[in-house]
């Protein structure tokens, strides 16, 4: 349930009126996972919203060194909501992070970066609000197990609706399964997750997040999507964190397990996060015009910026080693860095569902839900603004099906990086556009690069892969 609080006083009054038992303070670590700690209502007063509440930042991924570990969370009163999953009434507050020594906002606080990106947009006078609408796909499985050690490594997924369950020997054989790539979207009994998704949507709506639709997705084994209504940048990133929290916890409540990992299943679609965005000045949608697909020149320049910086953007928008199992060139993923109306094979699409100027927006299709949404949306906005400022023309639209282009024509269309390593190198070489207005700092870019390289790319490269035994055991 959302409280529509505005001030610290509103929050304190709600705590008293609703007999709140616990206050849960949340923030996002650098890779993008929600972290939390709880304080009893007695420990929270009006000053807490000014002076913050202390925690040890040294054990948070991508945050401080042990010798400078003290950090503060600064709760945002307007974010207050009642946690739908706790036994005792618990009020959640989304927080920013502050460095207690300097008294400044923490430069690796992703939410602060998002707020700076919004402020920078206003400062450029290009527009005053940027709306974001992400479509997060996810999987809901019945069981997942994984482990790796010196002499073995494995993962195993189970899902009752999956094609591999048709041969199941335990329990009654139900026969209704979804064949690979045929999950979009038969009715129950093949779709076993209708009630689960409905509960997810009801929970989101109770938390004040407007939902437009929910449906099964293309992959078998429980892929789903819930579409939220667009919102301004930081608010939308908050909503993404709530969305993931609700999807995972409703699944857990129902004895299942949800994941936003981009490519958990071999041989079927992965989970993407297409992100719609647009810029407005007051009531005026700046992307609407009379150019290609009803676009304004500003919108085309924005797309020019997205496409120019796409390889660097992917280091933030598709930031896991697993992301690139979805973004494999030549396999129906939006890896071609072009734009088009309707055509879903281009990295940037201009949707044509609605003739209304208010609906005019660009859909960037490369991101996936393993990203930190605060950083991803901010980076996309900065790339778009760089395009507007430098009048970057995106070239000619590509209205053919890019998947079917002959190789010699396809070779002319630049393609997205093929690995996290390539994306990180692209970000290292191209991030001046992120630093404008001090939105991103060199420190946060460096930290992201070194964290991803040391903790993910290198760790992954050290470990043998099951498929390599298949390919190479007999060499």
């Amino acid at each position: 349930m959302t409280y529509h609080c505005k001030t610290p006083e509103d929050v304190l009054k709600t705590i008293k009126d609703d007999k709140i038992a616990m206050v849960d303070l949340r923030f996002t670590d650098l890779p993008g996972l929600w972290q939390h700690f709880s304080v009893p209502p007695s420990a929270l007063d009006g000053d807490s919203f000014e002076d913050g509440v202390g925690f040890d930042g040294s054990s948070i991924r991508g945050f401080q060194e042990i010798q400078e570990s003290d950090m503060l969370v600064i709760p945002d009163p307007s974010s207050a909501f009642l946690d739908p999953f706790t036994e005792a009434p618990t009020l959640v507050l989304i927080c920013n992070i502050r460095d207690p020594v300097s008294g400044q906002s923490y430069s690796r606080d992703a939410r602060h970066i998002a707020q700076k990106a919004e402020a920078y947009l206003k400062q450029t006078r290009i527009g005053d609000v940027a709306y974001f609408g992400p479509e997060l796909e996810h999987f809901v499985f019945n069981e997942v197990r994984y482990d790796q050690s010196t002499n073995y490594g494995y993962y195993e997924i189970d899902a009752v609706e999956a094609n591999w369950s048709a041969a199941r020997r335990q329990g009654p054989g139900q026969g209704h399964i979804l064949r690979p790539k045929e999950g979009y979207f038969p009715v129950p009994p093949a779709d076993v997750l209708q009630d689960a998704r409905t509960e997810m949507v009801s929970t989101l709506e109770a938390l004040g997040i407007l939902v437009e639709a929910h449906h099964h997705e293309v992959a078998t084994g429980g892929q789903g999507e819930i579409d939220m209504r667009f919102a301004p940048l930081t608010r939308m990133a908050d909503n993404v964190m709530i969305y993931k929290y609700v999807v995972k916890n409703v699944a857990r409540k129902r004895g299942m397990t949800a994941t936003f990992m981009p490519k958990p299943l071999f041989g079927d679609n992965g989970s993407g996060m297409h992100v719609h965005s647009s810029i407005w000045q007051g009531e005026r949608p700046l992307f609407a015009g009379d150019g290609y697909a009803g676009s304004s020149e500003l919108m085309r320049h924005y797309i020019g910026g997205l496409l120019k910086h796409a390889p660097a953007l992917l280091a933030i928008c598709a930031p896991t080693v697993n992301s690139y199992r979805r973004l494999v060139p030549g396999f129906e993923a939006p890896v071609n860095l072009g734009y088009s109306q309707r055509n879903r094979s281009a990295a940037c699409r201009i949707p044509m569902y609605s003739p209304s100027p208010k609906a005019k927006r660009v859909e960037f299709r490369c991101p996936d839900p393993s990203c930190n949404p605060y950083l991803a949306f901010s980076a996309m906005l900065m790339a778009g603004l760089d395009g507007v400022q430098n009048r970057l023309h995106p070239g000619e639209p590509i209205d053919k099906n890019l998947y079917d282009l002959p190789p010699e024509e396809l070779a002319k269309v630049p393609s997205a990086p093929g690995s996290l390593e390539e994306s990180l190198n692209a970000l290292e070489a191209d991030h001046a556009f992120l630093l404008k207005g001090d939105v991103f700092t060199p420190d946060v870019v460096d930290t992201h690069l070194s964290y991803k390289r040391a903790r993910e790319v290198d760790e992954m490269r050290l470990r043998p892969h099951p498929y390599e035994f298949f390919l190479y055991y007999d060499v």
Partner: protein
Amino acid sequence: MSDTAKVMELIKEHDVKYVDFRFTDPRGKWQHLAHHVRTISEEFLEEGVMFDGSSIAGWKAINESDMMLVPDCSTAVLDPFAAQTSLIIFCDVHEPLSGQPYARDPRSIATKAEQYLASTGIGDKAYFGPEAEFFVFDDVRYSCAMNGAMYKIDSEEGPYVTGKKFPDGNTGHRPPVKGGYFPVPPVDSLSDLRAEMLSVMAEMGLGVEKHHHEVAPSQNELGFVFSTLVRTADNMQIYKYVVQNVAHQYGKTATFMPKPVMGDNGSGMHVHQSVWKGERPVFAGNLYADLSETALYYIGGIIRHAKAINAFTNPTTNSYKRLIPGFEAPVLLAYSARNRSAACRIPYVASPKGKRVEVRYPDGAANPYLAFAAMLMAGIDGIQNKIHPGDPIDKNLYDLPPEELTDIPVVCGSLREALGELRADHAFLLKGDVFNVGQIEAYIELKWEEVYAFEHTPHPIEFQMYYSV
């Protein structure tokens, strides 16, 4: 007596029942086709054996599938593993219509590399001496499906079985992680196995030298005498065949996969090489480490083209789990006397005849014909273009400060990268028509299939890192 006549003699002398014709596919796997002795005659051996080349990955299309095996009768050797007496003969692959060597036949390419060397006047022989490491396990299982993937290795020597209950009791003697080099038995449980491997290799005509346990538990190496390029590549095929089949007879399983075990050393294949002109060792001289200028240029070529060569010397996605910068693998493209942390080492030897270069990045997954030929071509290119390798680095490269390290080029970090490098840099391979564009393109395409398949399949560690994103 001609080689064919000798084969007929051998058949008679040993009452051979089958002649097993062997050739190597582009990936480096030995393939074979057995003919009953009834069909064998000198004429048959001279004409060659027809076979269907369309099912060999990376070779012919189905509509032009007829291929011919041309036996190299000087290689005939009895198969020590066959129940019925069999004679192995290495073959070159020829086009039946033209009668010419097939452009994608690795052994023919290696032969052309030897001929090209002679035609340049630089030398008339290139000697190669590989040291291929391998693991021996008791049990290995793996599978890849849509909803799961796994591998599991078991070995009585593994540090991971110290707590395991064995039916006859756990005897407790085994090497720790990186502790296999090289305590005596019972810690080394594979001594008899290796001895038998070496003896069988000797029976098959290899000049055997030594055997020992390697650094990782369950890891081993055997040594055999160097020889000319094609002959050594042939010997590598025998080496792998013997290692895998003796292990098999012991109820064990041997693999040359470069990195089957996480967190311990991988298996490499250091390759010693030198060029001779008549009786003169061309690499001996009075420059650094008693090398000649020619030898330095050869090293220059190996370093200049290393990233393209990687596509042949380190041709698997798994190869790059061994070649990780910062993890004690020879990834830095530099050279040094004695120092084992450089990609090229010049071993200390007293005699000029022993003067050679050891290239340390290759691994046992390589097709030996293509890998040796590619290194020779890179070395020749270095000599022809006087590519100086710069100064040697005699510090321990693993311990260099990061700012000095960044100036030293490194080998490729992935098969994907290596294939890109080979596509961009292969003119040096095309000289003398040794390699050819069609063959290189087909090879790249074949290897891209592996990259795609590998990049598509989720990895267990990704569930650990990302399941909760």
